């Protein structure tokens, strides 16, 4: 049916002045429309775009390295069920080197792989190759005593020349089995590299690390890999830019803040301007451990600290470093170690139901950030509860409760949530946005999203849908619920049912 007013307006010549007036307002109307479009687009939630290129590394040293072949096989079977498709392995130099506890370096060809006892690492990497899982190999401390400056411990001033020779052996031995290398685990943390600070309180570890990175890179080149893919960083999330002289004298437990570490390692001042004559490094990417405290949306106070909730701090730092020609531009970020601490960790842990929710939320943050090339899960089984301060530095350990199972093997909610992560968030303007992933999927697959009625104890199918080819899915819903969960049946008939997830 025609609108009579419109018909009249188009037909009647006497309406021309009004039409002209409207035409006069044209630019203004266009501008207002543009502004409204801009505001509308700004108000949209972050797009859950598909990230088929994002790798998720799983790391489980307690289940995969120092274990019997049977235990390793069982753990790998579990990982397959969970949908794992890539591994991160930390190779400790001391574990494979000859006479590592001796202060005197033995006489041997340090570049020859036959000089080392690769042991369980060989077995694990062979399994990964059989499963066609890419491996990120992080070569790290502890180091042989003979490879340190004072030859008194396994962490202080590792010798870069010795490290280069070791990396040549690593490259020759694992060249075809490793997809990606990284130099050092958490080099800004006193449990992995010493000293962290000089007696005057300024950071010491970044420059030590820079020489190790350069030496490791050259070592891989010497092994016959002309352009090795090596990640730089692997930094822990929290620390200090500097400490007092008194702290430097009495306490060796302080980390260097990750962005202060980045600047110092790249010879940049606090304004990210070159502060020396260092040459540009050529890492394949920058790796970081974006652990949070509680929720993934937590923003740490220290501006040089980087958790999953403040990843733009790292992107910005990398861009500034690239502008100063310290590293290549647009370096991708690899989140190579991550997990949400849960109970029974009394201090940093969240309830186990929250762990599943927060872990999925963290993965969604990583997934939605185009700069992030990899995410990760650290631990299948929890460690024992951690020790007192200093335990990690003095031969003890820091217990992590980021696993999918407790130390005694009891499964947490995350065990069921990891294969089918789910995030439910409030939508601007009402309703909910749901995002998820069917991790074991290798092609498009069908799943059901269930919602628990407001009265509770009654679950109904909210929507049956098909994932994208990478296993991800998303939709908006106006239906309120107490909680949501995912149900998926694999092509082989296994039924996966995630834990109830509350709105984030």
């Amino acid at each position, binding site marked *: 049916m025609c609108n009579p007013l419109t018909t009249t307006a188009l037909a009647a010549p006497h309406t021309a002045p009004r039409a002209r007036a409207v035409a*006069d*307002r044209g*630019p*203004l109307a266009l*501008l207002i429309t*543009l*502004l409204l479009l*801009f505001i509308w687009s*700004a108000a949209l939630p972050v797009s859950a775009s598909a990230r088929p290129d994002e790798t998720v590394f799983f790391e489980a040293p307690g289940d995969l390295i120092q274990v019997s072949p049977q235990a390793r096989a069982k753990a790998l079977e579990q990982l397959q069920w969970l949908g794992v498709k890539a591994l991160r392995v930390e190779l400790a130099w001391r574990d494979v080197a000859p006479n590592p506890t001796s202060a005197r370096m033995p006489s041997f060809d340090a570049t020859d792989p036959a000089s080392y006892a690769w042991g369980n690492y060989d077995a694990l990497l062979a399994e990964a190759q059989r499963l066609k899982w890419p491996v990120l190999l992080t070569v790290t401390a502890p180091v042989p005593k003979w490879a340190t400056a004072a030859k008194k411990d396994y962490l202080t001033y590792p010798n870069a020349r010795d490290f280069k020779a070791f990396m040549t052996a690593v490259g020759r031995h694992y060249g075809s089995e490793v997809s990606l290398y990284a130099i050092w685990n958490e080099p800004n*943390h*006193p*449990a992995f590299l010493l000293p962290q600070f000089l007696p005057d309180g300024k950071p010491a570890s970044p420059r030590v690390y820079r020489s190790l990175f350069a030496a490791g890179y050259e070592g891989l080149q010497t092994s016959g890999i002309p352009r090795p893919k090596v990640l730089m960083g692997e930094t*822990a*999330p*929290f620390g*200090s830019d500097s400490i007092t002289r008194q702290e430097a004298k009495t306490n060796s*437990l*302080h*980390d260097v803040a990750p962005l202060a570490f980045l600047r110092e390692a790249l010879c940049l001042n606090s304004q990210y301007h070159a502060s020396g004559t260092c040459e540009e490094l050529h890492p394949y990417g920058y790796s970081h451990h974006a*652990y949070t*405290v*509680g929720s993934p949306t*937590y923003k*740490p*106070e*220290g501006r040089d*600290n980087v958790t999953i909730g403040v990843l733009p701090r790292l992107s910005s730092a990398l861009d500034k470093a690239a502008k100063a020609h310290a590293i290549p531009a647009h370096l991708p970020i690899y989140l190579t170690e991550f997990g949400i*601490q849960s109970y029974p*960790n*009394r*201090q*940093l842990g969240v309830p186990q139901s929250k762990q599943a929710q927060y872990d999925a939320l963290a993965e969604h943050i990583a997934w939605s950030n185009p700069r992030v090339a990899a995410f990760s899960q650290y631990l299948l089984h929890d460690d024992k*509860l*951690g*020790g*007192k*301060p*200093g*335990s*990690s530095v003095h031969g*003890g*350990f*820091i*217990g*992590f409760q980021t696993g999918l199972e407790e130390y005694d093997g009891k499964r947490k909610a995350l065990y069921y949530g990891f294969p089918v992560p789910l995030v439910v968030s409030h939508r601007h303007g009402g309703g909910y946005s749901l995002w998820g992933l069917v991790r074991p999927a290798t092609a498009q697959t069908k799943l059901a999203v269930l919602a628990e009625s407001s009265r509770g104890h009654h679950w109904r199918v909210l929507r049956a849908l098909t994932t994208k080819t990478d296993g991800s899915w998303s939709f908006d819903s106006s239906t309120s619920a107490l909680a949501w969960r995912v149900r998926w049946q694999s092509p082989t008939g296994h039924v996966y049912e995630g834990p109830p997830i509350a709105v984030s």
Partner: protein
Amino acid sequence: MLVLVLTVVVPSGASADVGTTIEERCVNHQSLTGFTLVDYRRALQEMEASSNQYSECFKLISNAELAAATGAGAGAGPGAAVAAGPGVSAITPTPAESRAVQQAAHSSPAALDLGGHVVLPGVVHVNIASAASKLPASLLAMLAFLLTGGTVATGRSVKSRIARSRQR
């Protein structure tokens, strides 16, 4: 017998847990004020390795300890009465701050020093330059574009009206 067992099992008192309380408040992003220097030191000494090195808590509790030691308001002095007991973060205003608040309520708008900030009662303290600097660049560009466009459109409109009135 039961009483005896309970006596042995139950911790000796709240003071034994104050370090844990401070640590828990820190990892839960709650205020750390209202404890004594001794409490902060205990929290730092008792802190578990994972909290120490995978959170900002060592730094934050050290800062609270420092503030308490220097009387900067984050805590009470060593051995002094805790403002509201462990786990409660209320800070009692200093006498000078109390006087300033009283004065602000009843006097003419003279400049007052409240917590280190000079405040003029009755004046809205808005830093427009700071607010604008926090807007996204794209929005600022759009606003500038709109302003220019609006000026041009208004100019055209005025011009055409003048032209029309001249024609009449």
